[in-house]
């Protein structure tokens, strides 16, 4: 059985319309059912009245519409119908424009044969269907991702409360009942508290990822002193370092750059945290800030276990878990991914230089920006 294709020919010249009808009638493989409309208004009426139509052949010089506007108005009325433009104007640029506006094809009158028209119609319909299918999939996928991120957010928010209660109670017991607790009890409480802290860290990072994945990482651009950011990050990490008897050294001069102080501190905290994780006792972790060749470099160097090349490849990919730290610290595989997203948003880059057994240096390079140096007031705001 030959398939039936319902064609609406929008053409005000009876002669041209007749030629198209004849060309379509000659088709051996496909049966065409042709309707005519002499004006755009008639065509829109035809389409909107619910008459089933598979494809529209559209002339662009109609009594009530001319040029690109004809395509736009037709598309608006019937966004799911493939349109083939047929016009006397042989202009490549104009043809490209009409296709960009949503036409499936552009044929020049008197320049095509019957078989060319049949093929054009058949391909236009197929392309349109594929396009619509893809669009529906993309919409569905977007909604699914958005839903997932929203769920992540809600879950993370709602988990903070009970986890806070777990760690809070454990800590309270340790503090208030210290004397009446046995060694086993205290060890257990510490384990409870540390597990809760790990869970909380995981939640923070999942939340951060949900936020960064949902779209562009939002950077609040300000002139900031990277040296001050580094010193602050080192101060935050001091407790964790002291616990593992790792010494933190800062080698940071004031280097002014345009960036988001909070986000960059988050990156540094993460890098320093990793360095501490893989450091042995009495190791030194050096945090340095230098300005060279118009670039601002933040680096965190350790003399820890180093990262093997096969791990290095996947270092900045999400959810690829790293090694366990020297004191059994766990990894959730999100930290460095989030770092790289933040640095990307700054227009910078993050690099790793590592040798197994020798240590690792993570370097963040921020581009030199063209903004004028900060005024005195702005300096005071940051420091």
């Amino acid at each position, binding site marked *: 059985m030959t398939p039936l294709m319902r064609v609406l020919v929008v053409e005000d010249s009876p002669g041209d319309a007749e030629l198209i009808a004849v060309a379509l009638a000659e088709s051996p493989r496909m049966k065409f059912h042709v309707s005519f409309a002499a004006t755009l208004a008639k065509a829109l009426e035809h389409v909107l009245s619910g008459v089933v139509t598979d494809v529209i052949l559209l002339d662009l010089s109609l009594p009530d519409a001319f040029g690109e506007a004809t395509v736009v108005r037709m598309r608006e009325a019937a966004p799911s119908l493939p349109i083939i433009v047929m016009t006397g104007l042989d202009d490549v640029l104009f043809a490209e424009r009409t296709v960009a506006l949503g036409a499936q094809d552009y044929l020049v009158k008197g320049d095509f044969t019957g078989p060319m028209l049949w093929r054009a119609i058949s391909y236009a319909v197929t392309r349109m269907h594929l396009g619509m299918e893809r669009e529906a999939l993309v919409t569905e996928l977007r909604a699914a991702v958005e839903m997932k991120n929203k769920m992540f957010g809600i879950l993370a*928010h709602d988990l*903070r*409360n*009970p*986890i*806070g*209660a777990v*760690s*809070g*109670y454990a*800590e*309270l017991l340790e*503090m*208030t009942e210290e004397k009446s607790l046995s060694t086993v009890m205290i060890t257990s409480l510490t384990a409870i508290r540390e597990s*809760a802290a790990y869970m*909380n860290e995981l939640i923070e990072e999942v939340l951060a990822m949900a936020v960064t994945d949902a779209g562009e990482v939002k950077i609040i651009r300000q002139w900031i002193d990277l040296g001050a950011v580094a010193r602050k990050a080192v101060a935050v990490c001091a407790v964790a370092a002291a616990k593992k008897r790792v010494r933190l050294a800062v080698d940071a001069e004031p280097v002014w750059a345009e960036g988001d102080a909070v986000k960059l501190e988050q990156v540094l905290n993460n890098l320093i945290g990793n360095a501490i994780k893989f450091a042995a006792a009495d190791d030194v972790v050096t945090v340095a800030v230098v300005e060279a060749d118009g670039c601002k470099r933040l680096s965190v160097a350790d003399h820890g276990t180093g990262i093997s090349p096969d791990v290095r490849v996947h270092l900045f990919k999400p959810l690829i878990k790293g090694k366990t730290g020297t004191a059994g610290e766990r990894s959730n595989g999100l930290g460095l991914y989030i770092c790289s997203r933040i640095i990307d948003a700054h227009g910078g880059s993050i690099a790793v230089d590592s040798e197994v057994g020798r240590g690792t240096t993570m370097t963040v390079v921020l581009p030199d920006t063209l903004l004028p140096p900060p005024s005195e007031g702005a300096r005071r705001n940051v420091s």
Partner: protein
Amino acid sequence: MIKKFDVEGIVVLIVEDDATMASLIASIVTAMGATSAIAADGSEGLRMAHERLPNAVVCDYYMEPVDGGCFLAGLRNSRIWKVARIPVIMFSVETDEMVVCKLRNFGATDYIAKPFNPQGFSERLYSVVDPQPEHQRGVGMDFHFGAPEP
């Protein structure tokens, strides 16, 4: 270590709809040597603040049906002077700066992000409580009052 109050008879009102969290805070308050009272939402919190005239309030932000923001606004606009001046520590899982800023403008004395550790919590609570006797409370402590800063 948990920070302890220097004087006796301190009352802290806890406004929190999560019973586990409320009882954890109550335990910290007890360990600090003070008495606690628990309200399960903002409206009950407002009623209890007027009845008990606590030395400080710690209040969750997300609550149903009356949330912490409404509680804070209600408290700061109380016609009873002593109630309007009670120091309030807001706490929440929210770390969004806009929310924190809004709460400060509403007149929150301090803000603590969940999860918090008992020691830090006790230190913050200690620092907002005015240890003076009730009839002198608030005198010279204008920074407790919640007028938005310019």
